[in-house]
């Protein structure tokens, strides 16, 4: 299939900075938002198409939110077998920074790049809210610009966001510091041990249910004490990766 939608969002093209690929699957919704977040953070957003077999030499990859393949079978289950995922899995195992947001997190779990699975919210409803999180691991490719234990607020919107894994896997994640983000105040979806995001052993692959790409520009983020929609806590997820790439 050709790539009719895999184009850079008008006005977000930039000439410099690390090249960060954003994969568009059929049913991806937040691919353009992720491209915009990359550009605002100082990177070059490179649109990638699910049918591509190459990553085109990008320096990092974002798997965006949405409902790839209509969430058929299980959320992320069909996307995991799309052509580009072979390249993403190979590159991730080689250390390429990979971020999965919401549906992207589900794809990473289905790909076994991250442990566990995401199941339907325990309260059976879709939920959309500004969510408080605690950053628990600042040594991943995507969290180096946060303070350990820092509390942030970014939007959350999911129907199948309950993180689940066998107890011994949860214990191992806790002991090895691989819980990256934890829900604070409210557990919005029944996730085990309030887990909102995890990383792989190497720290280059991070998946989280909330949407940092929706909190990157004043006027378009969550409400904060600074004002309505002024929250930009999501931006440092992208600047963390970009800073590491520039420095390397």
């Amino acid at each position, binding site marked *: 299939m050709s790539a009719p939608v895999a184009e850079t969002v008008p006005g977000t093209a930039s000439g410099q900075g690390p090249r960060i690929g954003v994969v568009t699957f059929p049913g991806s919704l937040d691919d353009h938002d992720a491209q915009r977040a990359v550009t605002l953070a100082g990177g070059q957003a490179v649109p990638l198409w699910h049918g591509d077999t190459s990553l085109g030499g990008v320096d990092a990859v974002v798997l965006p939110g949405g409902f790839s393949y209509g969430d058929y079978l299980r959320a992320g289950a069909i996307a995991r077998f799309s052509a580009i995922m072979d390249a993403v899995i190979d590159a991730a195992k080689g250390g390429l920074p990979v971020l999965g947001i919401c549906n992207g997190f589900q794809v990473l779990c289905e790909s076994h790049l991250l442990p566990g699975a995401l199941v339907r919210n*325990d309260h059976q409803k879709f939920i959309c809210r500004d969510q408080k999180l605690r950053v628990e691991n600042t040594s991943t490719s995507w969290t180096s610009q946060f303070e350990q234990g820092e509390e942030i607020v970014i939007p959350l919107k999911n129907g199948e966001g309950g993180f*689940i894994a066998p107890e011994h896997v949860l214990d191992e994640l806790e002991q090895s510091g691989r819980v990256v983000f934890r829900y604070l105040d409210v557990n919005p979806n029944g996730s085990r041990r309030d887990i909102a995001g995890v990383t792989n052993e190497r720290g280059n692959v991070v998946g989280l249910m909330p949407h940092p790409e929706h909190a990157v520009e004043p006027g378009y983020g969550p409400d904060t004490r600074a004002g309505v929609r002024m929250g930009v806590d999501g931006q440092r997820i992208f600047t963390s990766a970009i800073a590491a790439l520039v420095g390397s």
Partner: protein
Amino acid sequence: MGRVIVEVMPKPEILDPQGKAIATGLGRLGFTGFTGARQGKRFELEVDGPVTQEVLDAAAEAATQLLSNPVIEDVVSIRDASAEHSAQQVGQV
């Protein structure tokens, strides 16, 4: 043409919100005798020839790799549909 039936259920220890919603709905409709409900998935895989052991083995492989997620689901049945069909017909008579 042969058909293989694969059935997948959420693991017993995993909360099944869909089943819970169904159980609530049953109670509301007056089906008070059902104390619980769980929802799974049934797949029908078609093949050109008869359902041989080889076909069943391939279905088992597909069930593990794609049709189920072993973290949250169990494959509870893989069987030839033709056997089931005749059983249903007997039941209708």
